[in-house]
């Protein structure tokens, strides 16, 4: 007899069940139940934000090179479990070729963003030639805790494509997975849990956006929110509630299959530019000779 997998949540590096005890049934096209998914509550979200906040200092403080190594490790583990993801995608209604393509792209995306970890700073930072005797430079820094309401139409690719540019730059995140295609999200969490990614850097919830989006947008300890769906009412509500703490709010309603939707500008959406000034002593400069 086949052992069925229990899909739980991923919070602070652990796999708890929803504290609410609520579930929703995931059915395939034939209306057969394929899994019981956690219907995350506001409190699960709150716990996830606490875990994400706790992880910011450690993750953002890591060497950029080290973050790159970890992201590459994610690609490696993902590659090793390719078959499992393909199987889950098939279970959720994908064709074989589209399932294989989606997994392939997800792996490639990990490799792609892994490489950005120690490069985007050089591209988007600057040394600014101010007119006074000061050394002045600007560097990108992580915004902090970022919430994501991930793509509804893909199970793996949209999730991965949103998470990666966020964590490349040292942010941590809380992600609500696709409600109708949630299986890969929790399996991806298992990948993350075995990839040297510190606990709390990525937290994954399953459940209902209608129920959770206002809590995502109004949480005062969340620095940014990214919405990857097309519900205009939710977009508006999120943007409105974001104003409570001047949350950075973005809509990434993108076709993640397209190559153009992997780019460093997504990394920069959740980066802050910090500018530092320091005086330059110029004693003796008049004597400099070339």
């Amino acid at each position, binding site marked *: 007899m086949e052992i069925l997998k229990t899909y739980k949540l991923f919070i602070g590096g652990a796999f708890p069940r929803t504290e609410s005890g609520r579930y929703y049934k995931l059915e395939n096209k034939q209306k057969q139940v394929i899994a019981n998914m956690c219907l995350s509550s506001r409190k699960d979200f709150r716990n996830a934000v606490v875990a994400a906040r706790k992880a910011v200092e450690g993750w953002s403080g890591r060497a950029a090179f080290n973050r790159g190594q970890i992201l590459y490790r994610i690609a490696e583990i993902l590659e090793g479990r390719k078959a499992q993801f393909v199987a889950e995608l098939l279970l959720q209604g994908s064709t074989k070729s589209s399932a294989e393509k989606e997994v392939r792209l997800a792996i490639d995306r990990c490799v792609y963003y892994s490489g950005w970890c120690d490069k985007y700073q050089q591209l988007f930072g600057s040394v600014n030639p101010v007119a006074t*005797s*000061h050394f002045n430079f600007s560097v990108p820094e992580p915004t902090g805790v970022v919430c994501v309401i991930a793509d509804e139409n893909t199970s793996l690719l949209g999730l991965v494509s949103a998470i990666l540019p966020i964590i490349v730059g040292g942010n941590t995140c809380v992600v609500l997975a696709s409600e109708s295609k949630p299986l890969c999200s929790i399996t991806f969490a298992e990948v993350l849990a075995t990839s040297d990614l510190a606990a709390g850097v990525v937290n994954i919830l399953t459940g209902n956006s209608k129920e959770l989006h206002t809590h995502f947008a109004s949480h005062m300890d969340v620095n940014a929110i990214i919405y990857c769906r097309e519900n205009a009412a939710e977009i508006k509500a999120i943007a409105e509630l974001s104003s409570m703490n001047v949350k950075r709010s973005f809509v990434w309603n993108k076709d993640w299959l397209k190559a153009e939707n992997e780019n460093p500008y997504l990394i920069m959406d959740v980066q802050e530019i910090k500018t530092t000034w320091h005086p330059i*002593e*110029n*004693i003796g400069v008049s004597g400099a000779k070339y």
Partner: protein
Amino acid sequence: MVLLIQSPTIDQVGVEERVARLMTRSIKKESELEGLKLALNMIDLTTLEGKDTVGKVKQMCYKAQHLADDIAGLPTVAAVCVYVNHVKTAKRALVNSGIKIASVATAFPSGNSSRKVKIEETKMAVANGADEVDMVISRGEFLQGNYNFVFDEIAAIKEACGPARLKVILETGELSTLDNVRKASDIAIHAGADFIKTSTGKIQPAATMPVTLVMLQAIKDHYDATGIMVGMKPAGGISTSKSALNYLVMLYETLGEKWMTNEWFRFGASSLANDIILQLGKEKYGAYYSNNYISKD
């Protein structure tokens, strides 16, 4: 040897910004006139040349007492400053004038000689009638890190001065950094200097506003800690009324009114007096004045 005086660090750019801001002070009308007269009264009229002669020193001493007789109410300068061998001449020329005689000593301007010679020279200056001695510190020793040597030398010269006031020339143009200027100031102050002075006038740059500000702040810190006043003398390169007023503004805003007298502040300068007279002449005659009307001694 370890330096036990803890001098604060100095940020050069910050000092220059403060100076730039002080220089935007606009001194007009009565304040300007009084300021110029005060500056005149703070001058150490100086001749320190290899070609100094009895005649030259006498002429300068006469000038010191008669800056511009056609302008009423002018003060005299504070002092004349000469080499040791001209102290007697100056003493005779300035008798009953109230103008002090300052003598450079201690192997001025390089300071490269033995302690014994320096002490003897100091004693000779005082014996010949100098009211004030302008010594130079041993910059070589300072830059080698022999701070106690520098300290001890200043203390020894102070002792040799007896009743004469000691001005300690740091020769800031050779100290390279403002951190060093501050450190040398602290050493001189603690070793007994009555005045600290920027320069010999023989090295460029001589007195500058930033250097003077750092020295004034050292004086202030010492005063705040001990209640003891030390004087300040920027010397060399201050030749215009405008810049003299800038220095006075800086003095006023750093050390306050107590220092606004020639007892505690001096300008070491040779051509500043005439520029001030040029400005005062303009006030008197209501038109821009000319150097042709001012004696060049």
